[in-house]
């Protein structure tokens, strides 16, 4: 008599079958998951607190506004975009913790609008190691010199360039002794070098002093400056230490010309230092493309009459990331790296926003993205190649543009 095969499942078979079922997602191709289900993740690592907090919230708003617009039109590559924002506290340790979370946990493909150079310096290695693109504001020359393998571009002019602008200001105004006071940052050396290289050949004496930005009083440092009797002074810190320095400079009866970075000499600086201490201080900042359609569009999106350069750059970062991925047909940091310079093609269709750019890309056209901060063209190190500067002065508690 032939024995029928048993249909009963043995314990061994049950264990083997369960193990196979549990392991299958790891070995089967992922086409089992719908392509539209997994969103593309873009991150803003912005300064919501600390020295950059005057700008971080606006940058986050610009990112979110563009992404909402693109998602409302269906997203890109058949997928929605998910936006995550983390606060770097304008502090490299906090920035690295936040970046680790964005990269390791949230699996973002790009980190946008890092503002402080110390944060950019600390976070960029995490980006290139994980093939995540960084589109930054952070301006220290040293950042672009890191071996970032192309995973870095920035829309803010690098700091040696900015140092030369300060030098040109001093030269035009007939300075005799330019005293540069800055906190210790990744760009301190390059700014001081830029000033010395321009001023000293013109016979202007340049003295420098690096101070501890965490001190609540800079009286000793200001005394050292006053003993040097300069006629030009650079107040070269971030907003919190600029407030401390400006007050101590006022108390010390400094009578010469003072100038600083516009990002430190904000309306909040005027509130903190007081009108008397802030009166007459000049500031230099890169100029956004105020006459451009992108700038006008962003003003409408954010319902503002005027925009600072950083929110314009943030707008451009998110547009560049989205358009690069769409052009490459792939959502990854590598795709953004390889394509970000191909979407500013002179012969392409001029676009100033992601929606128009996506439409042109779908139609198979080349595009020429012209941003709110400027043309957004980068050299091989990631530095912006075209930039203009503006000179401001604080008069009666207000920041006004003046001729240089």
């Amino acid at each position, binding site marked *: 008599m032939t024995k029928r095969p048993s249909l009963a499942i043995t314990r061994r078979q049950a264990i083997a079958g369960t193990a196979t079922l549990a392991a299958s997602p790891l070995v089967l191709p992922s086409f089992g998951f719908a392509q539209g289900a997994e969103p593309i993740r873009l991150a803003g690592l912005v300064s919501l607190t600390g020295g950059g907090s005057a700008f971080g919230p606006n940058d986050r708003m610009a990112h979110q506004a563009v992404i909402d617009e693109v998602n409302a039109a269906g997203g890109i590559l058949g997928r929605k975009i998910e936006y995550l924002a983390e606060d770097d506290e304008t502090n490299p340790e906090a920035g690295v913790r936040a970046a680790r979370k964005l990269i390791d946990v949230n699996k973002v493909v790009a980190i946008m609008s890092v503002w402080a150079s110390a944060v950019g310096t600390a976070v960029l290695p995490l980006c290139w190691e994980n093939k995540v693109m960084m589109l930054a504001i952070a301006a220290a020359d040293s950042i672009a010199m890191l071996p970032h393998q192309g995973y870095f571009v920035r829309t803010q002019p690098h700091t040696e360039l900015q140092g030369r602008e300060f030098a040109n200001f001093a030269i035009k105004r007939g300075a005799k002794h330019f005293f540069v006071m800055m906190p210790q940052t990744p760009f301190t050396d390059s700014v001081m070098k830029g000033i010395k290289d321009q001023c000293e050949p013109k016979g202007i004496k340049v003295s420098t002093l690096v101070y501890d930005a965490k*001190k609540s*009083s800079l009286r000793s440092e200001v005394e050292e400056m006053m003993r040097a009797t300069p006629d030009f002074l650079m107040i070269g810190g971030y907003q919190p230490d600029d407030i401390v320095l400006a007050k101590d400079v006022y108390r010390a009866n400094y009578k010469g010309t003072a100038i600083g970075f516009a990002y430190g000499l904000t309306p909040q600086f005027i509130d903190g230092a*007081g009108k008397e201490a802030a009166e007459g201080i000049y500031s230099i900042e890169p100029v956004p493309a105020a006459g451009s359609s992108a700038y006008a569009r962003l003003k409408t999106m954010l319902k503002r009459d005027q925009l600072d350069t950083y929110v314009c750059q943030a707008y451009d970062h998110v547009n560049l990331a989205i358009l690069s991925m769409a052009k490459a047909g792939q959502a990854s940091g590598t795709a953004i790296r390889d394509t970000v310079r191909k979407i500013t093609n002179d012969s392409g269709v001029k676009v100033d926003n992601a929606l128009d750019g996506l439409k042109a890309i779908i139609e198979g056209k080349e595009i020429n993205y012209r941003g709110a901060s400027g043309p957004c063209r980068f050299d091989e190190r990631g530095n912006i190649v075209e930039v203009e500067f503006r000179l401001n002065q604080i008069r009666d508690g207000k920041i006004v543009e003046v001729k240089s």
Partner: protein
Amino acid sequence: MAGAVLAVPAIGFTTIFAVLRFANFALAGHMAVGAFAGYLVNSWLGLPAWAAVLAAFLFAAMIGVATDHVALRPLRGYRALTIAIASIALNLMVENALRFCFGNAPRNFAIPLRRDLSFGPIHIGPQQIENAIIAGIAMMILFLFLSLTTTGKAMRAVADNPALADSKGIDPDRMARIAVAIGMGLGGIGGMLIGLDASIDPLVGFRSILSVFAAAVVGGLGNVPGAVVGGLVIGLAEELSLLALPSTYKAAVGFLAILITLSFRPRGLLGPRGV
């Protein structure tokens, strides 16, 4: 001027050491507590500087007694080093509690900005003069308390000879609480005076604690007049160092003072022999 302001928290530090025989580094956090209490009274309630100084003393004293009761009093029987380390941990908790409540951003008192008075190459701020006067008044009140009141004399007895004081019926716990209250209260005044001339944030005490500790060591740990002398010496040394060195090295003066004192005269300028 800087020495007079430094002397106030230095007296607080040395008072606690005199009675409790350990270095209480939580003074730094309580300097910040006093500074914020003075700030709230001045900027939010609009009260004048004298009210803010009183508030700084009272709040720092109360918080100091409470934190000591919770964190350090249970460790009284342990070695001085153990309690000193615990005080550092307590300090971190106090500073972070302030950071949680007020954030990191510096805050300024609602006082007008005034230019320095110049006497040739010497520049003195009007606020520095006022701070020195406030510091002087605080120290005078303390000296009168210690010299003329029964409680003050009992504290000095405990500082001189705890066993003998105990045998005479002086309650060591009560003296410890009073010493902590006075010490932290003076620290609070010190924090506020620093903030009046500059600004305050949760780390206002932390940035000064090295100079405060150096002043107490130079004067002689446990010796109250010594803390005044130490404060003046350290303050003067820090300012004079600017004539020879860049301002970046000013913070090293405190380290150097501690090193020199402990190497050549460990009891300090006015401290008792055998310390």
